[in-house]
């Protein structure tokens, strides 16, 4: 093969590498989600719905429902509203033993004069507690539409896996409620409308 052909062949190979790395960049998105879930650091998948009787793998795994009375975990409840509504936990904290099921209610009220669709995402501190915090029932990741003035109460039912690292004895469960289709808020006093609002509920 002449020099020109050699060169062109190598160019094609390298171009494929470059394209492959671009796709790898996008592949990092699901890779990141999987690693977060595997290590229990962050649960990002919108598909997480821990409903009782759903045959969910997590539920099946936690057949060790032996309550470990030698340990007491303080679970703190935190709520963050990202919008014009009221959202708070009914209790600020509860003390449980690993393996013991507990329920806490969160209260939500739409104080606007229009209907709002919102959904909550959970977050845990410390991050390594997430993988051992089994929620039997939770309102996260579901979209809820509330009429003006409507009040709702939702339960979170959970069991802490006794395999939780011994060094953790306080867990903060935090929910942030976002309006569906909401974007990063515009910076206060900003001179430009930051991004165009594109339609259809995104």
């Amino acid at each position, binding site marked *: 093969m002449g020099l020109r052909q050699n060169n062109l062949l190598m160019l094609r190979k390298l171009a494929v590498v470059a394209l492959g790395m671009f796709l790898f960049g996008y592949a990092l998105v699901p890779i990141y989600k999987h690693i977060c879930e595997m290590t229990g650091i962050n649960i990002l998948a919108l598909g997480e719905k821990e409903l009782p009787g759903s045959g969910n793998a997590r539920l099946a795994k936690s057949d060790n429902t032996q309550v470990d009375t030698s340990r007491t975990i303080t679970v*703190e409840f935190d709520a963050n509203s990202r919008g014009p509504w009221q959202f708070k936990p009914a209790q600020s904290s509860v003390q449980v033993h690993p393996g013991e099921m507990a329920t806490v209610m969160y209260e939500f009220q739409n104080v606007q*004069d229009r209907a709002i669709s919102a959904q909550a995402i959970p977050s845990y501190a410390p991050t390594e507690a997430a993988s051992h915090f089994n929620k039997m029932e939770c309102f996260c990741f579901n979209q809820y539409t509330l009429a003006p003035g409507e009040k709702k109460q939702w339960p979170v039912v959970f069991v802490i896996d006794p395999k939780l690292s011994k*060094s953790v*004895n306080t867990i903060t469960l*935090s929910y*942030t409620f976002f309006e569906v289709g909401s974007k*990063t*808020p515009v910076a*206060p*006093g900003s001179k430009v409308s930051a991004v165009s609002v594109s339609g259809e509920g995104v």
Partner: protein
Amino acid sequence: MINLHTNLKTASIGLMALGATAAWAVNDLPGGPAVNQLNLHPPATLIAQEQVWLHWFMLIICTVIFVAVFGVMFYSIWKHRKSQGHKPASFHESARVEIAWTVVPFIIVILMALPATKAVVASKDTSNAELTIKATGYQWKWGYDYINGEGEGINFISSLDQQQRAMSDSGKPEPTDDYLLKVDNPLVVPVGKKIRIITTSNDVIHSFAINSFGIKQDAIPGFVRDTWFRAEYVGDFRGQCQELCGKEHAYMPIHVKVVSPEDYTAWVAEQNKKLAAKQDDPSKVWTLAELTARGSKVYEANCQACHQATGKAMGPIKGLDGAAVVLNADSSKQINVLLNGQNNLTMPAWRQLSDTDIAAVISFTKNNWSNKTGQIVQPADVLAARQ
């Protein structure tokens, strides 16, 4: 190092004498930066002490290696130059030498990593905290919520002192020891107790940091993170936001007051009384003079930064002077704006202010500048609107 320090100081003093238009004659701020500070802050927690020790450890080892290596280099520059008549040798490789100066640094690096590992593990251990406080980053202030432990339920916003912000704009701030580090409501914690800080954000990424405590934790919207500290002695400690968060990034400081357990209990009691007082206010009927006087203060602390002292429009920020929503005898729209925000929260919600404060500032806007409506809003009206 000492000579370098002295030379630098002399040089900078010289330059100051030459060129500076104002002598920045400030003092060291305890718990904050010292004038021309050269090293890390004096540690107020054991973790910070570990960090200071680790830094000295690294600095000394690196300096020793640096002096040794460049001693060799400068010796070579001096001795092995052509002008000295030195003829070049011909060696150009040696496997033994290469292995030696790969393995030895590798061992040094491992030795450095050992104490660092201990410190990392210790700083992440947030268990067994006696008090949990949530720090929420906003554009551009911090909100503190005491969510567990003594003082549970207390919450407030901590903003940069507005006069200092104005000083910055003036371009000629007066020498002030706590310049850009003074807030209206400092975070108060008891000494000697393990405090867990949960961070989150309302909008973009901020970062909560206090150098004296050796903590820094990013505040990420939609997620919580945690860190902890145990202050070893009482005092005032300062920090600043440590992640670019928009135009006022330099203007959202952190001030932590560490007090004795008794003082802390007293402070908690006082805060609870204030919170309770906020509940009591609605039954009281206020006069116009009382409301507008109080409203003026609320306006200065919260609204003035965007709506300006003149209340005039600026860019996308709506004017209040002469605004229809303010002049309207039906105050419910204005109350709603204050409670819930407007325009996708370009105008934020001010729900965290008390009913009395909201009533006062609305009454103030209705009776200031060219607005002379004579209308007032009572705290009870605001409370009703919250339901």
